[in-house]
């Protein structure tokens, strides 16, 4: 178990495209007393859609190098991205369950001068907030109840594969709705709530028209919402491209409920 201290895995999209999400996450975690320590030299997780499709063994080794940084820091790893979570959580579990793979990865990293002994635990920030940190403690920090109708989007890799996830219910999950609703916002239902955003698996990068068509159908089914809230920068970017209403990352919503000013957050949305 952790003491609310983590090796903070940034990934690619948040620091390199959507830094306002990094800003909101750092501010919110500070308010919550969750300490985030930078992982110097971390790389792409690596991208599950492309790297895991091309060469699973190489995917595992690059993921292990990131896990090794967290292990050397002495903290478990936390990520803000469903894609990074998909890679790092699944890689960590495969290494914990398969001694042969673990020793192969250790041998490779050792040869490159990196010692790797124990596989750290991997958390998604949103999952951690609900299952470990607890709604009650978050509630104490909320000083500006939001009067908003929110279309919640979970994203696939926060929920699946189920064998490596905290929530057993992937069909009708509740935990992210509850996290959204403690801000005062109301999570509205919509027909395509559980549908994939269409970005993953290399589809957005490889066949953007197909990818955006999936997103458009999803977003078209949202009625009566003031905004969409996501736990993933990739889903976020994808939905934002086809949505007429603003898309917020969860920590941005929470930051507004903590009364952190929009200009500090770099948020230009009208809600």
């Amino acid at each position: 178990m952790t003491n609310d201290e983590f090796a903070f895995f940034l990934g690619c999209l948040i620091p390199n495209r959507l830094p306002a999400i990094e800003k909101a996450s750092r501010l919110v975690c500070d308010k919550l007393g969750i300490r985030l320590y930078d992982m110097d030299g971390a790389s792409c997780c690596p991208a599950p859609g492309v790297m895991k499709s091309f060469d699973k063994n190489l995917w595992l080794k690059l993921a292990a190098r990131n896990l090794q940084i967290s292990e050397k820091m002495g903290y478990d790893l936390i990520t803000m991205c469903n894609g990074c979570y998909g890679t790092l959580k699944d890689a960590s579990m495969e290494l914990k369950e398969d001694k042969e793979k673990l020793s192969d990865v250790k041998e490779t990293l050792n040869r490159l001068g990196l010692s790797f002994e124990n596989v750290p635990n991997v958390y998604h920030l949103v999952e951690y907030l609900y299952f470990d940190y607890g709604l009650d403690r978050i509630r104490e920090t909320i000083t500006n109840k939001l009067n908003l109708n929110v279309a919640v989007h979970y994203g696939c890799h926060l929920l699946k594969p189920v064998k490596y996830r905290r929530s057993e219910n992937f069909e009708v999950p509740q935990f992210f709705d509850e996290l959204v609703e403690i801000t005062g916002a109301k999570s509205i239902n919509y027909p395509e709530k559980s549908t994939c955003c269409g970005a993953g698996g290399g589809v957005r990068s490889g066949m953007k028209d197909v990818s955006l068509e999936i997103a458009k159908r999803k977003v078209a089914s949202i009625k009566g919402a003031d905004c969409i809230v996501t736990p993933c920068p990739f889903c976020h970017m994808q939905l934002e491209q086809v949505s007429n209403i603003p898309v917020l990352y969860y920590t941005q919503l929470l930051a507004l409920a903590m009364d952190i000013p929009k200009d500090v957050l770099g948020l230009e949305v009208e809600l």
Partner: protein
Amino acid sequence: MLNSIHSCMKCGTCTGSCPSGRVVSFRTRQLVEEHCLGEIDLDDIAIWYCTTCYNCMERCPRNIDITDDILRIREEAYKQGKVLPQHKDIMSYIYRTGHAVPINEEIKDLRESLGLSRIPPTTHKFEEALGIVRLLLEEGGFNDK
């Protein structure tokens, strides 16, 4: 790995659960069956339509690891050099910068205006770490050509 596919009862739950299958001609059950029979066409663009949402795999009543199988099909395609140029570009970005999506000047400015470090503390800042990422990629047979 594919033995379990022989227990497929062709119910079509996988095809019906696929988000891509709703917008393009991608039939999950057919793909997995072709793989099982060794009749897969690795040049078929369909193998790249999967978003890896895992719906098919989680809902399969026979517990066939369908999404994992599709990834293995793609791995075979990669070994034969049958990949999309856009995906190869992403591999190149990772090789050159450590990131599938590297930073640019506009985002550096934005980071600074938000009070974040101009360069994130990743391989963008630490050359030695990038060197190890490159070695791993080279050992895995990837060269940036």
